[in-house]
């Protein structure tokens, strides 16, 4: 029998190793809407950052800013913000629609 494969697993059994291969999905390409921040309204309470499931809100020192790389567009940040500082806008409105990178 001629085996033409290289080892996927180093060991006898199937173990994963995050140091060898740390996976990541391009979830930023999922969204159909994106959060837009009105910085003037932000009071740095951090609720958006706490409740964002993929943890996409970045601490900028005195305000929180959406980082769109992995944002799925769920809208929780906008709903939870007590100051309505974040609104969700259709992804199609933006020139860099569906692309990675900060907003």
């Amino acid at each position: 029998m001629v085996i033409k494969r290289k080892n996927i697993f180093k060991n006898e059994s199937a173990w994963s190793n995050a140091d060898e291969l740390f996976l990541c999905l391009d979830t930023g390409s999922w969204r159909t809407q994106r959060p837009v921040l009105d910085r003037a309204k932000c009071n740095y309470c951090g609720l958006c950052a706490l409740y964002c499931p993929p943890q996409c809100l970045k601490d900028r020192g005195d305000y929180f800013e959406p980082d769109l790389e992995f944002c799925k567009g769920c809208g929780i940040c906008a709903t939870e913000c007590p100051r309505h500082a974040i609104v969700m806008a259709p992804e199609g409105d933006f020139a860099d629609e569906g692309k990675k990178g900060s907003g």
Partner: protein
Amino acid sequence: MKAKKGQVRVITGNAAAAHAARLCRPDIVSAYPITPQSEVTEMLSQFRADGLMDAEVVEVEGENSAMNLVCAASIAGARTFTATSSYGLVFMYDALLETAAYRAPVVMVNVNRETPGIHAVSSGQQDMISTRDSGWVQIIVEDCQEILDQIIMAYRLAEDYDIQLPVMVNYDGFYLSYLAEAVEIPLIEDVDRFLEPLKKQPERPKLVPGRPVGCGTHGIELGYVEARYKHCMALERVLGKVDEIDRGFGAYFGRGYGGQIEAYRTEDAELAILVSGSAAGTARTVVDAKREAGVRVGMVKLRLFRPFPAGRLTAALRGKKAIGVIDRSVSFGWPSGPICTELKALSSGLGSVPILSYIDGLANMDITVEHIGRVIDETAAAARGEPYQEVTWLPLES
């Protein structure tokens, strides 16, 4: 270097199993009681209580939990032991598959008993047969001494870096579990010395808090195939390793069992019978009697069941004019018994001779001297070219 003589005591098969586990210094022991195994769990708990065994003994609420528990502990690096039988063995079936595929070197005794459906609290090998595709190494032993010795050898095999597979040691419920025989219990220091080579081998993978490695990843396409392939190849390596370990055990403790099979008086035999478990003891005496009467019969005792010892069976049985196989179980979907059906896969190597199947010993009905005598007589007739019955259910035809 040889082991010192151990203490000879008259103990049951279950007690022999418990002592063997104790001697191998397990870290984690977990089992659920079930007839005819319960004594094993009781003795292990008592050893701990008496300070004779320094292991965590976990009295779980079911066999499925027992296997999951020892498998996980094994993956964390523990040496583990469990014991079960029939209903318990099939209750832990998902964990059984997982343990083998995770390549966790768990050692377990399975005290053979009939499986659920026709409720039976009696001896039979149906439980072992029901789990033959679990991926475990499966060995069958004949008497109480062999139970003890084989468990020690099982750790040497399971934890070998080239193997990394769980090992199931099967012994007949009722016939061996409750039978008291003289058993030499080795000194624990000698068992330590026998297992010492394992410490010099590379470390197998372990689950360590803080290290980003995970056991139980999804197998995707070729990853799955690779894992299955490596598992099957490891089972291939078990064949030679079993013989090697048996030779080492024999040299050190003075008791050898032949490894994958024991071939008894087969060299100049014209015909042979294949048996396993405690029936081999009876068969040996009948073979001797038939030899006295001029029948050139030999016996092969099947010890290693999984992986199936194709090579050594072929070598021992090639050239025999007929072979009679006694199965202590049935093969659903094939007329002949399970071990007989598997032997038939070697037909081309054996020379396409008559292979007669005998189903006997179910539900604690003895495989008697008369039965074995009949098996030999009918196999001899087949060897002479006379007509023969392919499959015989001895309890129904006696």
